[in-house]
């Protein structure tokens, strides 16, 4: 009996300890706030506001381990919403919608001033956002939109995935190949990024007679799966000359399969490699001309959000509900080291 109790305790402690240090879903971590709180007491006497004047924000995000994009996004948010900048921020992470909604409800109960949300899923948010509105909490969406009336939120700061896709496809078209045989590696089906990035390519393939899809498969953002998908095409002996991977990880997996089979890739080589998200390491591949194109997906929404909050706090109104961030596409022939340093995440 005693042993069992001890076991339960041990496991509980283990889980708590581990999730706290790893920041796993959906644990909330107030750790950054705590750190700065202790600092504030000593060397931060000149901080702009005492804790009572801080703007309380609750931030609901996807798991930062999900991808390099998310890691950069989370880091950006954490750097912006600090005590020094006048914020008291709490974070909640989950890749699951229902867990995110639970976290939102908790933030509403805690009485935050702003709820910042990057929703895992587009549906199911109406009720909880209405609750937030009733409690006088302002909601700002970032990175991802949701299916809800726009009266329920103040602003939505997003990337236009369709535009990202279009930019990439336009770039590909500008390469003027006589024939396009594309391996299309998709992200998790149904995600905004997948839909936007697939859409542009799908319509182009439908429209042009010399554009063919060799295979179209989801690798679920997973490099290993992408490697297996490309390996399978190579094993089948089907010719192809473009790899259109919807993120950098999958492009990397695809390239690993190409290297194994001695298929050349990059600028002026047999296969054109395209990725998205502009990870620093991916841009370095571009710089080395191993890849051909990388589309940006801007993870740095924090400054946009900050601006909106400042506007609202000073009594102003937000003119545009939907704010689309600037995003670029990089070509291996024109990319510079500066681009890598500035845009790499």
């Amino acid at each position, binding site marked *: 009996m005693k042993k069992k109790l001890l076991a339960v305790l041990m496991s509980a402690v283990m889980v708590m300890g581990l999730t706290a240090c*790893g920041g796993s879903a959906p644990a909330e971590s107030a750790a950054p706030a705590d750190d700065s709180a202790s600092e504030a007491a000593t060397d931060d006497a000149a901080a702009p506001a005492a804790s009572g004047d801080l703007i309380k924000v609750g931030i609901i995000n996807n798991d930062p381990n999900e991808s390099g994009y998310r890691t950069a996004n989370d880091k950006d948010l954490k750097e912006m919403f600090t005590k020094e900048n006048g914020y008291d921020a709490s974070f909640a992470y989950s890749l699951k919608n229902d867990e995110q909604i639970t976290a939102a409800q908790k933030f509403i109960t805690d009485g935050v001033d702003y709820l910042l949300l990057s929703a895992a899923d587009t549906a199911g948010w109406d009720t909880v956002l209405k609750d937030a509105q009733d409690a006088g909490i302002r909601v700002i969406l970032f990175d991802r939109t949701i299916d809800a009336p726009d009266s329920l939120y103040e602003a939505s700061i997003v990337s236009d995935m369709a535009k990202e896709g279009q930019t990439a496809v336009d770039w590909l078209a500008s390469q003027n190949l006589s024939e396009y045989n594309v391996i299309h590696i998709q992200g998790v089906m149904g995600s905004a990024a997948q839909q936007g990035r697939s859409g542009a390519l799908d319509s182009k393939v439908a429209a042009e007679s010399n554009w063919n899809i060799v295979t179209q498969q989801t690798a679920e953002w997973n490099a290993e*799966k992408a490697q297996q998908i490309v390996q399978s095409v190579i094993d089948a002996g089907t010719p192809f000359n473009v790899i259109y991977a919807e993120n950098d990880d999958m492009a990397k997996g695809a390239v690993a399969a190409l290297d194994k089979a001695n298929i050349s890739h990059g600028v002026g080589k047999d296969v054109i490699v395209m990725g998205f998200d502009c990870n620093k390491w991916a841009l370095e591949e571009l710089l080395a001309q191993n890849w051909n194109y990388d589309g940006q997906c801007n993870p740095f929404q924090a400054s946009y959000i900050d601006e909106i909050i400042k506007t609202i706090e000073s009594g102003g109104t937000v003119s545009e509900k939907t704010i689309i961030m600037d995003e670029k596409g990089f070509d291996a022939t024109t990319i510079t080291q500066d681009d890598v340093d500035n845009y790499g995440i």
Partner: protein
Amino acid sequence: MSQARKQVKKKFNPAVLFRKQIFIPIAALLLLAIFNLIADPSFYKITLGYNSAGDPVLSGYLMTILDYGSELAILAIGMTLVTAASGGQDISVGAAIAIAGSVILRVLCGTDSRPDHMQAPVIVAFLIACVVAMLFGAFNGALVAYFKIQPMVATLILFTAGRSIAAWINNNELPIISDPSFAVYGGFIPGIPIPTPFFIAMVCVIITMLILKFTNLGLYTQSVGINESSSKLNGLDPAFIKFLSFVLLGLCVAVAGLIKVSRLSSINYSVIAKDIEMDAILAVALGGNSLGGGKFNMTASILGAYVIQFLTTTLYKFNVQSDALPAYKAVVVIVLVVLSTPKAREFMGKIAKSLKGSERSVA
């Protein structure tokens, strides 16, 4: 009918074959093989080419199966032992691979996440990963063996927390090893056209077979799995045997982790070796082993692992959407579960008998 022929006939008894444990993975393998042969014989084409480093490599679907099935085969070894001894399964192997892989990269990278050269020999990194993975295995094992927690529940802890631990080990950074010599473990040894993971898997298999032959690991784990109380009265320490099986699985995890991170010279904490625990458990089941513990057949488990990869590769070849893979595996599980029931066995035995009977009457 001559006397001699009668004798031969008597020796071959299909009913016995049906009862043999290894029949299940072999039948599954044959089924897949025949399907591919009919659907597209080019499946079996193997070509010798040269990779981007100029080394000879064999490529083709069969090579892909040998290559990618290897991690699974290695995990199946450990999972078989855990299943036999504890009567439960470890569902944290995917997360533990993330940890082991992360440790390897951390040691190789040192402080810089994108080093130009490896900061430590691979063997050192690997050994440290072995120790770490065995410690996590020991944690699971202790919960199961000494605190008597259900294996699935006990390993749920690491299943939940493991990937976060992996990310934490590398400060949530994304380490990349640019040194091509690291890619050898998940690719090819220069000059040898067969994928290295297959060699690693075979070394693991041989070591396992030697251990099973020259120690009492097999007898002890089976004995504990079948009847713990009786094993105790025969002087065994059932708790320690269970604990040991989890530690050994930890070792298998470290090896699989090395192959996984070497394949891409990098790691993605949230998706590396995703859902591999389910495949490893399926491999054990496909080997005809009871998931309730007790008797096991290691060869059948390992064969089971390669059969699963055979299935996966076949599905990729026929352009089945990869997110639909689990559904196909589910079908396999259903068929397996049905086949392993006594009713189905009896039925197959009867068919075999009647086949034999009709043969005799014809003769």
